[in-house]
């Protein structure tokens, strides 16, 4: 509860700052402090020290899982603001408003990590998405940014429609919006669940698949990520996407698992996973722009995260947390470096190791993490995902497919490394401040640390 209310309040504080604080660069610091407060509040909440206590009428479910993810999301946002704060300042005139929107997004994320009712799911999703439409379009003069915003908006609204249809149908089947539906209706379809509910869940699945950009509902992703200002792409591709997964896995774990006894969602997930991996990995191979490549790569990574949704066991829930952290941190890092580049194509990275060795080295660590090379957090993330499916004992072919696509993913991640280290060129960057370097080195350090001791994060689930 702390996180939900505080983030909304902090958002309003930032709004006030827009006319109270004249110095733009101090906004970043205010936001950082706010995020820190939020993080601390969320952690204290984790251990039962809530600032506010309401009767939520079962609208929310406060579980360790949700708290941990929320902490990760807030922490990642903190790191994101620390590293990319300067880029946010430069992205437009309404800096305070951007921070406001980021806080509102966090509010939505908090809702998504605690929701226990389809209404809160819906609200959380909308609160999270609507600010993103705006952030996407924040570069108002840039036609690409406009286009991305409009595409995102149209398709996002469409998926909202699908989600609502899903909610309505499940309601028709169960008579409740509560996630843990206590069914009084007689079970009909194949001995277990209502037919309408199944159809509704299918619609919900599709709309959430849309949010986490799983193929074939991924189409918005490359265009939007490409068109949005890089600094917001970074935010959208990481924290927001991870939040989508958290919402998704809760839905799967509670609603779909209930219907799971006779109806197997695994095949549907398998199809979605394969097509996501296919589209993400294969299309990324041919991209010329690193930014667009990263968009496809985020689709590919989503494919891996979907493994958790399919298997739904303890390994999966640990894994999705770890994956969310590893993926978010690495991608934030990559985008932070990308935002400093003058040329977003692969050629733009040529010879970065010579001009900016620190950037190149840390960027390499991020890319290795995304590729899932051991000693980086990404390895254990992938490891958990594969383990989750293997543990279910079936769909080994899916694991092998995933592994093969992981090998393909090396292809495009390493193209960046190749450009940075092995090709000649003078890649131009914006000015790199020492604090940026420090931040990015710290980020790389965290990734390596998690790559050796993933339990640093996962222990929070239990202790």
């Amino acid at each position, binding site marked *: 509860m702390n996180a939900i209310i505080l983030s909304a309040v902090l958002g309003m504080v930032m709004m006030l700052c827009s006319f109270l604080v004249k110095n733009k660069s101090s906004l970043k610091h205010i936001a950082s402090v706010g995020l820190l407060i939020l993080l601390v509040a969320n952690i204290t909440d984790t251990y039962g020290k809530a600032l506010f206590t309401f009767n939520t009428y079962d609208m929310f479910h406060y579980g360790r899982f949700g708290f941990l993810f929320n902490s990760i999301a807030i922490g990642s946002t903190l790191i994101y603001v620390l590293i990319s704060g300067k880029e946010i300042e430069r992205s437009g005139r309404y800096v305070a408003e951007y921070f406001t929107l980021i806080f509102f997004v966090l509010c939505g994320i908090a809702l998504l990590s605690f929701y226990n009712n389809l*209404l809160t799911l*819906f*609200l959380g999703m*909308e609160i999270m998405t*609507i600010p993103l*439409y*705006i952030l996407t*379009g924040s570069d*108002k*003069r840039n*036609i*690409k940014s*406009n*286009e*991305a*915003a*409009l*595409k995102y*908006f*149209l398709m996002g*609204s*469409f998926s*909202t*429609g699908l989600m*609502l*249809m899903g*909610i*309505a*149908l499940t*309601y*028709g089947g169960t*008579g*409740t*919006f509560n996630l843990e539906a206590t069914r009084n209706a007689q079970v009909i379809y194949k001995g277990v669940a209502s037919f309408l509910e199944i159809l509704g869940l299918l619609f919900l699945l599709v709309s959430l698949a849309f949010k986490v950009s799983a193929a074939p509902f991924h189409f918005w992703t*490359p*265009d*939007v990520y*490409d*068109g949005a200002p890089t600094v917001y792409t970074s935010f959208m591709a990481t924290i927001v996407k991870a939040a989508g997964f958290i919402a998704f896995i809760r839905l799967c774990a509670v609603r779909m698992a209930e219907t799971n006894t006779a109806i197997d969602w695994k095949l549907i997930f398998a199809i979605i996973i394969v097509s996501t991996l296919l589209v993400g990995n294969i299309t990324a191979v041919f991209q010329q722009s690193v930014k667009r490549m990263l968009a496809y790569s985020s689709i590919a990574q989503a494919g891996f995260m979907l493994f958790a949704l399919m298997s739904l066991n303890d390994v999966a829930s640990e894994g999705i947390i770890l994956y969310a952290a590893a993926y978010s941190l690495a991608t934030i890092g990559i985008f932070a470096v990308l935002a400093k580049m003058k040329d977003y194509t692969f050629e733009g990275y040529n010879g970065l190791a010579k001009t900016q060795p620190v950037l190149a080295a840390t960027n390499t660590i991020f890319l290795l993490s995304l590729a899932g090379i051991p000693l980086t957090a990404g390895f254990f993330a992938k490891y958990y995902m594969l383990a989750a499916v293997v543990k279910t004992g079936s769909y080994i072919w899916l694991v092998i497919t995933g592994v093969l696509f992981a090998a393909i993913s090396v292809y495009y991640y390493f193209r960046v490394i190749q450009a940075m280290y092995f090709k000649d060129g003078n890649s131009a960057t914006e000015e790199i401040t020492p604090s940026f370097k420090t931040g990015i080195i710290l980020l790389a350090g965290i990734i390596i640390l998690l790559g050796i001791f993933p339990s640093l994060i996962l222990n929070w689930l239990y202790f």
Partner: protein
Amino acid sequence: MPIQYYIALAACLFCIGVVGVVTRRNAIIIFMCIELMLNAVNLLLVAFSKMHYNSALAVNTNTNAGIEAQVFVFFIMVVAAAEVSVGLAIIVMMYRNVHSVDINFLNRLKN
């Protein structure tokens, strides 16, 4: 009145909305079609609300069952209104830059 009638009606409206989204090129019309879809959902929710109410009535005459669906509809309307304000702002911004709301012209981002 059997619930199937309303399901069918809502489904028809919803699908007309979908067809509109797919076939039209004007961003505003597409947006309107999305609104149409939302309305279909609203109608369906209200119908379900009354259906569940009706079933619950047989057990308990004082029941409140189904009311949450109507509350939900209310929330949907709220969200739709918020969405419209943002959406139209984006469309207007777009129009300012390219002087068109034809989404076929939105193809700088592809492949």
